[in-house]
């Protein structure tokens, strides 16, 4: 699974992207966020306020119960502020 981080999620986690291989019980966006929180201090800090985190699966906005699979591209970012 390819993960992408943007804006303050990128700076807090300390990288723009990475390949991960979550365990089989990580089936939804919600599961993935919980699993990521256990990956270290940067992740825990970045995901401490999950209400401020938006997720896109394969470049589509995804709700917390949306499924994630091993060859998905999953992006985590704050609410958008363009325009």
């Amino acid at each position, binding site marked *: 699974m390819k993960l*992408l981080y*943007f*804006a*303050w999620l*990128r700076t807090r986690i300390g990288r723009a992207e990475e390949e991960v291989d979550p365990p089989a019980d990580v089936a939804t966006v919600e599961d993935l966020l919980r699993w990521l929180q256990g990956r270290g201090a940067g992740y825990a800090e970045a995901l401490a306020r999950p209400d401020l985190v938006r997720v*896109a699966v394969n*470049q589509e*906005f995804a709700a917390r119960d949306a499924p994630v699979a091993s060859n998905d591209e999953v*992006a985590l*970012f*704050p*609410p*958008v*502020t*363009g*325009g």
Partner: protein
Amino acid sequence: MAIRVQEEDFDIGAEIKALTLGRTEIGGVASFIGLVRDFVDPGAGQESTAIRGMTLEHYPGMTEKMLSRIEDEANRRWPLDATLIIHRVGALAPGDNIVLVVCAAAHREDALQACSFLIDWLKTQAPFWKSERTATGEKWVKAKQSDDVLAARWEKT
């Protein structure tokens, strides 16, 4: 219909000319330019903070996808002859252009409404993030609730 994400500045006059050239069925062109302001919106009762610069980050791939979808939706809702969205990324200074939205139509109200719709939806749907540089450092811009309110006007009930 056109979408561009670029570091370079844009020239609204040249863009509108290119969009309308020979298209004499067009009666009105509505456009909106967003610029880098030199101050941060203060909260209630607070003083505003001077901005020295801004950096715009985006999600390549998803950005173009979302902008195209927003543009498609505008074309579904209003009879438009041409639309254009240009969004800049990278380092910008106060007074710099950030975004350009142009809508051309036979009738002015269609062009004006679609232009307003496009900028409202872009603000809440397109994956861009701003960080602002002030005297105290660089800070990611918080999303504004007022933008959600403006975008919600266009939700179909």
